[in-house]
């Protein structure tokens, strides 16, 4: 469904991505792991068109994700940002229903927003709160509700559990797994957290020194030589 070929991106003299090849199939849940600063977020930004790659191809449904194809891609896309990235100036329900309100009445969008909030475990009383009034965990849930509000076919999660305590992290992992299974959406999760990988992922890709050092099924992960350092480091 999404295929990346030979992606390169440098900032000045610093090469961050140096020939990334990656593939995510329809309905697959892929986790991208890698140490801090290896360019996971840059990879994501290239896919979203927020950074222009120097070289390489990004294909979606077999076609290059260029200026013409990207709007259609984004229409069937949802994303949970690391810090939730809720719009401070809008109440929670308008955040969740942001995309819906572009094509339906406010009343209807609000109804759906409250439904999606309930799906992530937030009550209707949160609908009229402002993002600043939410705790970190609640904001993440609201961000998740916004990501799934318009029933996307592709969902990205950027470090969904970073900054959460283990109990909250487990809950978010469970929610994501549930949502991905329910909707059959294709999911890409960026994470440091091996618990997340086991909970959410079908497959894993390790980003290291600017390219994908290993990609395979989560089940095969424990036998993969390139991952040993990473696994050891994160499970201690």
């Amino acid at each position, binding site marked *: 469904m999404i295929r990346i070929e030979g992606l390169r991106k440098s900032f000045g003299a610093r090469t961050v991505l140096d020939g990334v090849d990656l593939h995510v199939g329809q309905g697959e849940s892929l986790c991208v792991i890698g140490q801090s600063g290896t360019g996971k977020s840059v990879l994501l*930004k290239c896919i*979203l*068109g*927020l950074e222009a790659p120097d070289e390489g191809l990004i294909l979606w449904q077999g076609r290059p994700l260029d200026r013409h194809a990207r*709007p259609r891609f*984004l*229409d069937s*896309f*949802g*994303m949970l*940002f*690391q*810090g939730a*990235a*809720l*719009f*401070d100036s809008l109440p929670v329900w308008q955040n969740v229903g*942001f*995309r819906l309100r*572009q094509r339906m009445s406010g009343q209807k969008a609000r109804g759906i927003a409250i439904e999606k909030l309930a799906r992530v475990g937030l009550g209707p009383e949160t609908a009229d709160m402002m993002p600043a009034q939410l705790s970190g965990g609640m904001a993440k849930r609201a961000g998740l509700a*916004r990501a799934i509000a318009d029933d996307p076919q592709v969902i990205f999660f950027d470090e969904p559990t970073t900054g959460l305590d283990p109990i909250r992290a487990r809950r978010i992992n469970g929610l994501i797994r549930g949502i991905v299974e329910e909707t059959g959406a294709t999911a890409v999760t960026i994470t440091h957290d091996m618990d997340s990988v086991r909970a959410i992922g079908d497959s894993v890709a390790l980003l290291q020194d600017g390219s994908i050092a290993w990609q395979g099924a989560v089940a095969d992960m424990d036998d993969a030589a390139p991952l040993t350092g990473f696994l050891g480091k994160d499970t201690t």
Partner: protein
Amino acid sequence: MNPVRLSGRATLRGLRAVGAVALFTLRGLFHLRPLRPRLLAAQIFQIGWLSLPVVALTALFTGAALALQIHSGGARFQASDVVPAIVAIGMVRELGPVLGGLMVAARVASSIAAEIGTMKVTEQIDALVTLSTDPTGWLVTPRLWAAMLTVPVLVGVGDIIGIMGGWLVGTQSLGFNSASYLANSWAYLESWDVISGLIKGAAFGLIVAVSGCWYGMASGRGAEGVGRATKSAVVAAAVGILAANFILTGLFFE
């Protein structure tokens, strides 16, 4: 290094920056689809209505001080009775727009840069893109138009309040007769004096909003980046207003 080469490079960099800002401004102004009247209204409230007290106070004190200055200055050549006319012309053509613009720059350029910079740093701008919404149309366009539409109104209100400040001082402490002070204020004022000041106001409003949006959008990472963006936006807006004022005054009155 070779000085010619150095200055050439600096010139090129400067030109490129000017071009980029011009493009940013045009894109911001004409990204009109979809129309977002609610966002525009919110910005008109933020930029225009909430700046009113500051601009009014500035104009009041400026008009009053101007009356005192002209009275004592004019006394040197027995021309103290020009106070009403000079206060009116000075306020309307120059001090109303410039000081009003500078006050708006201090208040608005900083808050726009801080708001947009914070959105940038917390990935809210990226989030807009993923929600199929162009950040320019959602953030920049309403602010540019709101500032361009409301600052002339602020300048107009400031003109009137400034003239009233002069009138207060003139009648209360300089011994002018109230009715003749007002009559003299209007008598020598031409409509172009007023209109040129309002046009300046629109230009200054645009400069303020562009500075805020530009530095906000270019904001670096972290709180430090936002702080720097805020400072740069105010400085750029203030210098931009003074430079534009000089150019516009030359265009209008030479």
